[in-house]
């Protein structure tokens, strides 16, 4: 009887493809999960402690809609110091409930009926649904393993129509681990300049790049500041997923519209979480973001272990240079991603996410998170090797 009460455009969006896996895996006690898209580190103690102190001190009220002024200033400093992009903390930055909210309200601020939003795939599961919820039409752009899952200017150019409003730029990428280097971004910038579209640059994994390649923020390229909304947050870099703090930076004209949606819909991000985020950045300013560096080095070691492990079992595995995922190809096994993950879970108790959960172009791949202890990764690799050998 409720069907008529449900918004048909929401009902048309299928539920997340990894839900079913989650339900099975959650009941298996001794399963090892490589399906977790969040750090295995607990938030550094000094950050947790700062939040506790603020609660004890009675800092329990709303903050201004935009966020705590000191936090906005720290974010401005952080963005300039780490990524060489300048934003005015009073006008061009907004603190959100995780980068997820930032994605949602940025799309709602820009996109309307008939507008197309380009989404490189495979990519994070919520972009396309968020576009639909905003009333727009998501248009996938397939990226390929042979291009290291980069977005190419040719593919971008081909996907642009007169209705294209904006491009989501999700690098370093979940699930592939692919990154876009400066030259790659410059090629994209040329297209953006010519076609005059906005870029929603989701940099949530910006701190996690490996092999000496530091992330280049799209807005730092000549002329691109005006066309870019930069989204980031504390979840991945500072191991602060459950706190739900993120931020959006960009031209005042758009940030102010996002602020309007945020103001009516959310009011403000949690004050305790903002205090914690402030501590993360203030402390980082003093010691050159040492928390982040230590975690990055730890991920990097595990990344090498995983890539080597997959190659040793005969699977094609492009070397991911960002985030904390490997995205090996399982095409040589003759199974689909879904079959592979199902059997791996049922027969060997290892949970991975089928590449198809991140878009149709993820077929033939599986996403394995290495944000898990080395001991478990080693066991998981052994079991997967047994599984893959058994298939041949």
């Amino acid at each position: 009887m409720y069907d008529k009460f449900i918004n048909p455009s929401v009902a048309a969006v299928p539920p997340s493809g990894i839900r079913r896996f989650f339900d099975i895996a959650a009941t298996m006690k001794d399963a090892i999960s490589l399906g977790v898209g969040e750090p295995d580190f607990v938030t550094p103690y000094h950050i947790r402690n700062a939040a506790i102190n603020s609660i004890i001190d009675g800092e329990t009220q709303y903050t201004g809609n935009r966020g705590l002024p000191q936090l906005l200033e720290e974010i401005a400093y952080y963005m300039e110091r780490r990524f060489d992009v300048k934003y005015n903390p009073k006008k061009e930055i907004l603190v959100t409930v995780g980068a997820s909210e930032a994605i949602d309200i940025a799309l709602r601020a820009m996109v309307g009926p008939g507008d197309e939003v380009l989404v490189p795939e495979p990519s994070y599961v919520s972009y396309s649904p968020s576009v639909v919820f905003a009333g727009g039409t998501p248009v996938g752009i397939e990226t390929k393993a042979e291009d290291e899952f980069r977005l190419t200017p040719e593919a971008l150019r081909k996907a642009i129509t007169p209705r294209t409003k904006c491009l989501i730029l999700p690098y370093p990428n979940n699930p592939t681990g692919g990154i876009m280097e400066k030259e790659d971004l410059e090629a994209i910038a040329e297209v953006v300049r010519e076609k005059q579209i906005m870029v929603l640059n989701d940099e949530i994994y910006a701190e996690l790049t490996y092999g000496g390649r530091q992330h280049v923020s799209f807005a730092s390229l000549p002329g691109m500041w005006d066309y870019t909304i930069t989204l980031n947050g504390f979840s991945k870099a500072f191991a602060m997923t459950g706190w739900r703090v993120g931020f959006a930076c960009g031209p005042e004209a758009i940030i102010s519209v996002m602020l309007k949606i945020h103001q009516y819909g959310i009011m403000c991000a949690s004050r305790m979480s903002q205090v914690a985020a402030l501590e993360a950045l203030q402390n980082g300013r003093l010691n050159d973001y040492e928390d982040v560096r230590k975690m990055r080095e730890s991920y990097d070691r595990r990344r090498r272990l995983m890539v080597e492990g997959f190659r040793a079992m005969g699977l094609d595995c492009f070397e991911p240079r960002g985030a904390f995922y490997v995205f090996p190809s399982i095409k040589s096994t003759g199974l689909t991603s879904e079959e592979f993950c199902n059997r791996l879970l049922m027969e060997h108790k290892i949970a991975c996410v089928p590449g198809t959960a991140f878009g149709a172009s993820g077929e033939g791949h599986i996403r394995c998170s290495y944000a898990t202890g080395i001991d478990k990764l080693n066991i998981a690799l052994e079991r997967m090797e047994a599984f893959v050998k058994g298939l041949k």
Partner: protein
Amino acid sequence: MTKFEMELIDLLREDCRLPLEKLAVMLGSTTEVVAETIDRLEEERVILHYAPTINWDKTDRERVEAMIQVNVTPQRDKGFDEVAGRIYRFEEVKSVYLMSGGYDLLVLVEGRNLKELALFVSSKLSALEQVTGTQTCFVLKRYKEDGIVFEGEKTDNRLVIVP
């Protein structure tokens, strides 16, 4: 010390049983180089020892630990080194540190029972002519040692699958 050596040491401190091949992969090096580096670090006595951290409360062995604050008379030309050496040679002694503050040496001792340690203090430690005073503090409970927390299992609060 190179960055490579420091990273290798960090990994060994985390788990010194990791096979050479895995260490090599994680450090982006070769098994030979890792093996050579470990040999050299051992030879240069940078790495002294590999040992597990034991929760003795879960074993049958009776064991008592104490930290003894020791005041000593330093010796001409030799300072505290000689008397420290006289103390650390006793096999009951696990660690000896020269300290700033209200006393000179902190001596960690280990024995089977209270009586054994009391005997050590009265007949061996206090009997040294440079020792002018001791204060023995027994360990009642061990919470954390070398970065390892003893009680409470490590829990992973994360959901099994997260997009």
